[in-house]
């Protein structure tokens, strides 16, 4: 399968000299359409740093990142937002929903950002919330949603605009066991049904069962 997201010999180094910290050390991996990739590892192993590099949020110190075949490590700061906007959906551990927006409006926000037709945005947001089983809660603010509902809303937001790649950072960390499983199942379904390439950073052992592929990171290096 062709990888929609590739990282090749990517390293991220903070500081210099004696205080130098290698957060990610020469990691190479690919993420393909329809695949759920699980990145596991102990705390401080560089998982989130790697996810940030894959999401074009953080520049690697060395190595290459390609999104949909396009080399992004050489792009300027002004071009990276467009790569994120058009190719990547994010799911965050703390949901990162806007408290002043309803569930539907949180999804609308991304559609507006992507320049979708404003007349259709509302219907599209509801359609996405329907996909994650939350359409009946569309008018509620995040404060009125449960943890699972918030995470589902953030999935709907990540799917807004149909990005080929979804990156999820500890998506079950703030959820109870049953809701966590539901969320992971939903991610797998999305990957298979919608052909999304999904990378999950997680400590959750349940995630292993649902991922197509699992990689372990230790001290910034991939363990084989």
């Amino acid at each position, binding site marked *: 399968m062709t990888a929609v997201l590739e990282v090749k010999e990517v390293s991220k180094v903070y500081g210099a000299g004696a205080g130098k910290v290698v957060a990610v050390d020469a990691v190479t991996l690919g993420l393909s359409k329809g695949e759920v990739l699980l990145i596991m590892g102990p705390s401080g192993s560089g998982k989130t740093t790697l996810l940030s590099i894959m999401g074009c949020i953080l520049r690697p110190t060395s190595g290459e990142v390609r999104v949909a075949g396009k080399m992004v490590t050489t792009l300027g700061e*002004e071009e990276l937002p467009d790569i994120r906007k058009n190719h990547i959906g994010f799911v965050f*551990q703390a949901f990162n929903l*806007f408290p002043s927006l309803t569930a539907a409006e949180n999804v609308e926000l*991304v559609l507006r*950002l992507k320049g979708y037709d404003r007349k259709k945005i509302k219907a599209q947001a509801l359609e996405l919330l329907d996909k994650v089983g939350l359409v009946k809660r569309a008018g509620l603010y995040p404060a009125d949603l449960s943890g699972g509902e918030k995470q589902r809303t953030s999935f709907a937001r990540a799917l807004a605009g149909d990005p080929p790649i979804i990156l999820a950072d500890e998506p079950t960390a703030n959820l109870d066991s049953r809701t966590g499983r539901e969320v992971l199942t939903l991610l797998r379904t999305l990957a298979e049904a919608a052909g999304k390439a999904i990378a999950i950073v997680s400590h959750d052992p349940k995630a292993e069962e649902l991922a197509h592929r699992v990689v372990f990171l230790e001290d910034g290096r991939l363990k084989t």
Partner: protein
Amino acid sequence: MLWLAFKTLFHEKGRLIITLIGITISTVLALIEVAIYLGMMGNATAVIRHTDADIWIGSKNIQSFDFALPFPEHRINQVRAFSDVQWADKIILTFAFVKLADGRREQVQVIAYNPDTGVGAPWAMLEGRAEDVKGGHYMILDKTSEQRLGRLELGSQWELTFVKEHSFKLVGLSQGIKSFTTIPVMFMSYNQFQPLLADMALANHTAYIVAKLKDPAQAQAVAQALRVALRDNDVFTRDEFVYQTVMYWTVQTGMGMAFFLTAILAVLIGGAIVGQAIFAFTMEHLREYGTLKALGARNSDLYLVIFSQTVISAVIGYALGVAIIFLVRDGIEQAGVDLYVSPILLVVLFFTLLLVCLAAAYVSVRKVRMLDPVTVFKA
């Protein structure tokens, strides 16, 4: 992004209300200060602006309209001798006292004019006519003087003290004509007031000679020629005399600086309130801005949110401030304080306030510009 700015701003109503109260108070303060100042300057120059003369001739080294010293009235002949002059007339400006019903005395500003030509006459009459002062000890008082002089009834007799006591009959009421010093203005006939000047050994003296030119465009040139001819007088075009009077009260007395300093402080306080509120808002929502960046928003999108919130706050706060001014305006004016609120003033003050608010919001913009979207992955 305007949509997001609206949503987030109006979601936190408590903060919005506090911000709006700050801007509203700032607007009211600044607007009242400037409007009072302009109202006072309007009063200080009202007679000059409402007299249909292109040239004003006063005593030497005169500083403002209110401080005219008498000079021989025959100099009017030198003015009339100029071929460019269409007509010339005389106006007396002096101060006297009137006796109130309870025996106290109140100072008045006397303007004595030629009722045949109407030059220097009251321009807004509520009752009676400007020419009614002709032919006797008649006078016109302004309706707003009632606050200082008591009830003004046409036909009533008033004792005027100008060296000696003289009785004058009230034959008319003007409307909204006030002096800069808020001393009541009393209009009377030039010829009837002349004998009173004689009591001060100032017979045949006047305070001003005013002239209308055949071609008002020649005012500068004629004023210059008159300066040469009338070396013991100061000669002004109408605009110059307005400017001289305004500058005297504004700069020489320091009054203008006091008003403007308060107005500027009010605007700065308004800006600081908005800046502080928007900054606190930005800091509290830093994660959301980071999320927006991670989702693909450009810095310019985030600036738009911050500046839109600033503009929305400024517009609403300013509108409320202006509404309050218009609501209390009558009450303030009834208390004897004139407010001059013109569309230009409203526009200039709005843009000044907006500019200050946007400058204050720039601190938030800088904070967001430096924000690293990686922070969104921190739990």
